[in-house]
């Protein structure tokens, strides 16, 4: 599922609040790096670095426009992390269903 992605890069990229904010913004529309930089108190270079981390993790893509690059969120990659958790939920819901079935039976006495 994540075969063509470096999962450590992805984890690292998601572990920072500014980078998560950049993802949220670029999911809805494209932003130039300078437009993003105006949203934060950090330098243009610092924002550029965050964008580079996100790009390496496959969470955003950059598209040239004029002298600038537009940053765009990659919903597929973002969804992958959530997708894994969906499947984990499924796994545990099944287990809890089975627990419920066992609890509905009279307990066998041998382990009491």
């Amino acid at each position: 599922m994540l075969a063509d992605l470096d999962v450590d890069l992805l984890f690292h990229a998601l572990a920072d609040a500014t980078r998560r904010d950049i993802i949220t913004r670029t999911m809805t529309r494209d932003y130039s790096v300078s437009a993003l930089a105006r949203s934060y108190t950090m330098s243009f270079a610092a924002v550029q670095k965050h964008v580079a981390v996100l790009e390496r993790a496959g969470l955003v893509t950059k598209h040239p426009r004029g002298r600038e690059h537009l940053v765009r969120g990659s919903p597929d990659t973002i969804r992958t992390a959530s997708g894994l958790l969906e499947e984990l939920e499924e796994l545990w819901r099944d287990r809890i269903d089975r627990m419920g079935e066992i609890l509905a039976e009279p307990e066998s006495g041998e382990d009491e």
Partner: protein
Amino acid sequence: MTVTNVHKDPEHLTFFITAEFDVPTERVWRLWADPRQLERWWGPPTYPATFVEHDLTPGGTVTYYMTGPEGDQHYGWWRVLTVEAPNRLEFEDGFADDAGNPISDMPTTMATVTIDATESGATRMTISSIFPSLEAMEKLVEMGMEEGMAQAIGQIDALLAETVQPGVGA
């Protein structure tokens, strides 16, 4: 449905699920503490789990394997960290090789189980999993999916057997 809450946090790689059961706390605890009960729910019917070692004491080891439809066996282990019967269990959950020995370069998950009485006399159980990396999460889910798939195929097989049997008579 006994599941009362599910929390998924992809950014922090954490997951927890809460369920309520209308039985005493000690009864729910035994789902974990009694290996014969544990193996009835840990794996799905098509991938039943067999617990080999089950030392539920701090520092203790639990080992198990799951047997697939082709007779394939998948080993796993827990390293038990905290045991406060009947309320709390913490363990590290990992994969093992065919001899049951932990595979050191495989990711592990930290699991915490809390079991408490509710105001109404029911029992609330919460299971939380924290993943060290997305890779760890992926690997675990992959195993789960494998089970789920096998289960679905098993059901289709059963259905086909029912439909075909009267006419064919193998």
